[in-house]
C-alpha cells in the first residue's frame, strides 16, 4: 500500500469566509480505485472542501497532490486537466441542449461542432458499454428524468477522462431504486480503477458503498476510518459530537375526530396536465399522516391547494366545514383564519423573505393580528418582543431578531418558520420537507416540535422525500405516485422496501420486481420529477 501514491492527497487545507472558518487544517488521503465517503452535517465544510478541489475556491493554506504530484488548481479548467470530474448536487446542465451537446460543452475538439459531436457519439457508445451508463444522446435535458440527468453529469466527467469523480449529495433527488442503480454504476467505476469521493449526509449510503469514510465537523476532519470497521451510531456521533437519536421518541398516537377530509381532489396545472388525479385522505386530530413519494408526484400541488394558493376541484372539509378550492374566496390568509398553518416545502422561496430581518419574517401571514397592530400602524415593539420570545423558545441561533433571514443557517431558518406557524395553535399543520437542508441537531429539535404538536391533539399532514423521516414521524403513511395515492400503511407495519415500491407506482408489493419495471414506471413520470427539483 505504501508503493502506490494516493489518487488525491490534501495537506493542511484551510479556507475562511470572513470570520467563518469553513475548512481548518484538513488533510486526507484517498487511494486509487476506492470509494471514499465524506460525511458531515450541513455547513460542516464538505462542499467547500470539494469546491477547493475543483478550483471554485482558492484555499488560504494547504497543498493538493494528485497521484503523488503537487498540483495547483486555480480554476475548473485545471481540475479537469488534473483528471478530476465533479457531479454537483444541483446539476450544471443546459436544459434546452441535447445530452450530446451538454457532454461536449467545453471539451469540443475544434472550432466546428460536427466532428466533436460525432466523436462524442462514438465515445458515448463505448462508455455505455464499459459502465452501463445508457442515455439517449439526442434527448433534450429538460425531457429526461433526474436520474438520467445525473448520468449525463457522470458521462460528462468520464468524457473528459476523469480518473477521480466527486459526487456531492448524489442521491438527494433519486428514488431508492434510482439510488441503487447509481451505486451499481459507482461500483463498476471503482472496479475499472476510478477513484470516487462521495459526499453525503446519509449514513446508510456510506455504509453501503464506501471503502473508507472521513467525518467532518465544523470545518474540521474529525476522523477517517475504514467503513468495515465502523457503525452508523459511531459515525453519527462523530458528526455531531454527541449521541443522536436516529429514532424519534414518541408515544402511540391517540387519534381523535377527523380534522381534514379530502375527497376526489383534482388539480390541473397551467399547462393542462392533471397533477392530482383524485386524492382521498383523512387526517385526524392527534395524528401525523406522512405523505411519501418521489418529488414531483403531486405532493407539492396538494400542499398548495390545501394551503390556499392553488386551485383545485373536489371536496375538502376542515372540521366538517368545506374549504373553498376555486381560489375565489380563498388564499393563505383565509386558510389561516380557518386554523390551517403551513410550513412550505421551499422555505427560502415561500416561507421567508430572505432579505428581511427575522422579526419581520416572524409575522408574515399574521401581520393583521390585533396584537401586532396599534391603530393604523404596526406595533414594532410588540412584534420584536414576540420574535425574541419565539426565538428563545425555539432555540434559534443566533437569537438576534434584527439579522436578515438569509444569514441564518438552514435549520435556524426552518425554526423561524416553524415557530411562526405552530405558535398560532392551528387545528391542522401542513408541513413540507421539514428538515431539508437542516443539520442533525436541528432535525431532532424540529421532529420533537412536530410530535409535541401532535400530542396536543393537532392534525398534521407531513410531506417529505426522506423516507427515514416519514417512518420516524408518521402514525400512518400514504404514498403518492403520479398524482394518486398508491396506498396507505400503518407506520409500524411497513418498511422502506415496501414504501419504495409504492413510490415507484407498484402496488403489488408482495412479489419481486425487476429493476427495469421500476425504472420504466419512474421514467413515465420522470419528466415531472425533474422540474420539481
Amino acid at each position, binding site marked *: 500500500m505504501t508503493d502506490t501514491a494516493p489518487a488525491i492527497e490534501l495537506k493542511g487545507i484551510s479556507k475562511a469566509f470572513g470570520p467563518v472558518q469553513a475548512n481548518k487544517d484538513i488533510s486526507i488521503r484517498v487511494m486509487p480505485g476506492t470509494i471514499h465517503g465524506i460525511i458531515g452535517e450541513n455547513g460542516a465544510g464538505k462542499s467547500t472542501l470539494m469546491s477547493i478541489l475543483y478550483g471554485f475556491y482558492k484555499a488560504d493554506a494547504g497543498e493538493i497532490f494528485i497521484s503523488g504530484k503537487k498540483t495547483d488548481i486555480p480554476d475548473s479548467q485545471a481540475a479537469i486537466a488534473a483528471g478530476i470530474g465533479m457531479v454537483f448536487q444541483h446539476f*450544471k446542465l443546459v436544459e434546452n441542449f441535447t445530452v450530446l451537446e*451538454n457532454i461536449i*460543452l467545453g471539451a469540443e475538439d475544434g472550432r466546428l461542432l460536427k466532428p466533436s459531436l460525432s466523436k462524442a457519439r462514438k465515445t458515448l457508445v463505448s462508455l455505455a458499454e464499459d459502465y452501463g451508463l445508457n442515455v439517449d444522446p439526442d434527448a433534450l435535458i429538460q425531457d429526461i428524468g433526474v436520474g438520467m440527468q445525473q448520468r449525463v453529469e457522470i458521462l460528462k466527467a468520464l468524457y473528459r477522462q476523469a480518473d477521480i469523480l466527486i459526487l456531492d449529495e448524489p442521491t438527494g433527488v433519486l428514488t431508492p431504486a434510482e439510488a441503487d442503480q447509481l451505486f451499481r454504476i459507482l461500483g463498476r467505476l471503482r472496479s475499472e480503477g476510478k477513484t470516487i469521493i462521495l459526499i453525503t449526509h446519509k449514513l446508510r449510503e456510506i455504509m453501503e458503498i464506501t471503502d473508507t469514510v472521513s467525518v467532518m465537523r465544523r470545518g474540521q476532519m474529525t476522523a477517517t476510518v475504514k467503513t468495515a470497521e465502523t457503525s452508523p451510531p459511531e459515525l453519527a456521533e462523530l458528526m455531531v459530537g454527541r449521541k443522536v437519536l436516529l429514532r424519534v421518541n414518541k408515544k402511540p398516537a391517540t387519534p381523535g375526530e377527523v380534522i381534514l377530509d379530502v375527497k376526489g381532489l383534482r388539480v390541473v396545472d397551467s399547462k393542462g396536465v392533471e397533477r392530482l388525479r383524485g386524492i382521498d385522505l383523512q387526517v385526524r386530530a392527534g395524528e401525523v399522516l406522512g405523505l411519501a413519494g418521489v418529488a414531483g408526484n403531486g405532493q407539492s400541488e396538494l400542499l398548495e391547494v390545501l394551503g390556499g394558493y392553488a386551485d383545485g376541484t373536489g371536496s375538502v372539509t376542515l372540521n366538517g366545514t368545506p374549504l373553498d378550492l376555486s381560489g375565489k374566496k380563498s388564499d393563505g390568509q383565509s386558510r389561516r383564519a380557518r386554523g390551517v398553518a403551513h410550513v412550505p416545502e421551499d422555505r427560502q422561496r415561500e416561507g421567508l423573505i430572505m432579505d428581511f430581518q427575522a422579526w419581520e419574517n416572524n409575522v408574515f401571514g399574521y401581520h393583521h393580528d390585533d396584537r401586532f397592530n396599534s391603530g393604523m400602524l404596526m406595533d414594532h415593539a410588540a412584534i420584536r418582543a414576540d420574535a425574541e420570545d419565539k426565538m428563545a423558545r425555539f432555540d434559534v441561533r443566533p437569537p438576534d431578531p434584527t439579522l436578515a433571514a438569509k444569514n441564518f443557517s438552514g435549520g435556524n431558518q426552518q425554526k423561524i418558520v416553524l415557530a411562526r406557524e405552530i405558535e398560532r395553535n392551528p387545528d391542522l399543520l401542513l408541513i413540507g420537507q421539514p428538515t431539508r437542508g437542516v443539520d442533525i441537531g436541528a432535525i431532532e429539535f424540529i421532529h420533537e416540535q412536530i410530535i409535541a404538536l401532535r400530542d396536543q391533539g393537532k392534525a398534521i399532514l407531513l410531506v417529505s422525500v426522506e423516507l427515514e423521516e416519514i417512518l420516524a414521524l408518521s402514525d400512518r403513511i400514504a404514498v403518492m405516485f403520479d398524482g394518486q395515492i398508491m396506498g396507505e400503511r400503518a407506520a409500524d407495519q411497513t418498511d422502506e422496501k415496501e414504501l419504495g415500491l409504492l413510490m415507484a407506482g407498484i402496488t403489488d408489493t408482495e412479489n419481486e420486481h425487476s429493476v427495469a419495471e421500476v425504472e420504466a414506471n419512474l421514467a413515465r413520470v420522470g419528466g415531472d420529477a425533474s422540474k420539481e427539483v
Partner: protein
Amino acid sequence: MDYITLIQLLDSTVRLATPLLLACLAGLFSERAGVFDIGLEGKMLAAAFFSAALASITGSVWLGLAAGIGASMVLSAVHGLASITFRGNQLISGVAINFLAAGMTVLIAQDWFAQGGRTPSLFGGARFEPITLPFAKTVEDVPFLGPLYEELISGHSILVYAAFLAVPLTWWILFRTRFGLRLRAVGENPAAVDTAGVSVVGLRYAAVGIAGLLCGVAGAYLSTALQAGFVKDMSAGRGFIALAALIFAKWRPWYALWATLLFGLFGALETRPDVIQSVIGIKVQGQLLGALPYLMTVVILAGFVGKAIPPRAGGEPYVKER
C-alpha cells in the same frame, strides 16, 4: 397598386429594415449570451454620429464606419464592465448608455461643427453610395423580373448586403461552431459553462463586443447611407424596435430577418399612406403603423403567437456558487 409601386415599397422596406436587422442581430448575440441590451439605441446613435463626423472631416466613409464601430464598441465595453465585471443591473446600464449617447452626440456635434447639433451634409466619398449590381441596367426592361432585380435587389449600399449576409452567418456561428454552442450555453446556464472550465466572463464580453460591432454598422448605415449626415436623435427608437423584433423572432437569426422585414414594411407604409388607402380603401394614420411593431410585440409577449422563451440566464449577472 401597380407592380412598380409594390417594388418601390419593398425596396424601401429593405432599406428601412437594414438598421433594424443589424441591431436585432446585435441584441441576439448579447442576449443569447445572457446579457440584456437595451442600449442598442444609444450605441446606434453614437455610431451614427461618429461615422458622419469622421466621414465629414476626412471625406472617407470607410474611416467614418470604423469610427462608428469604435464608438459603439466603447459603449459596449462600458456595458460589459458594468454588467459583467461589476455585476450591475443590465437594464440600468443600458438606460444610462441611451441617455449618454443622446446627450453626448448633440453636444460634441455642436462643439465640432456648430450647426445646431448636426453634422454637415455628406456627399461623394463620405457616403455609402448604392451599388449597381452587374447587368442591372441590361435587364431593366425584362418584364416582371427586370424591375425586381434592378429596383429591389440591385442599387443598395454595401451595408445592406452585409446586413443580409449577417443572417446566415449568425445562424452558422450560433449553431455550427464551438463558440456558438458555448455562447448559447452561457445564456442558458452559465454555471454549466463555468464548471466545464470555460470562462463565462470571456464569452459574455465576446458577445457584447459582437453586439457593439453590429450596432456600429447599423449606426453608420443610418447617417452615411440611409441619410446624408447626422441629426439629433436620428436613431428614432430603432434600437427599441429591434428589441421588439428580437422577441418577435424568439431570439433566432432567420426569424429576426422576417421580423425586421415586417417591421421595415410598416415603416415603408408609414411614408406611403396613399398605398394603404388605395389597397384597403381606408385612410390609416401613419402613427398607427409606427406603433404596430410595439403592439405586435405586446401581443407576442402575451403569448398569443406561440411562446417566446428568452434565454434562461438573461439579465442575471453570474456569481459563482457551490
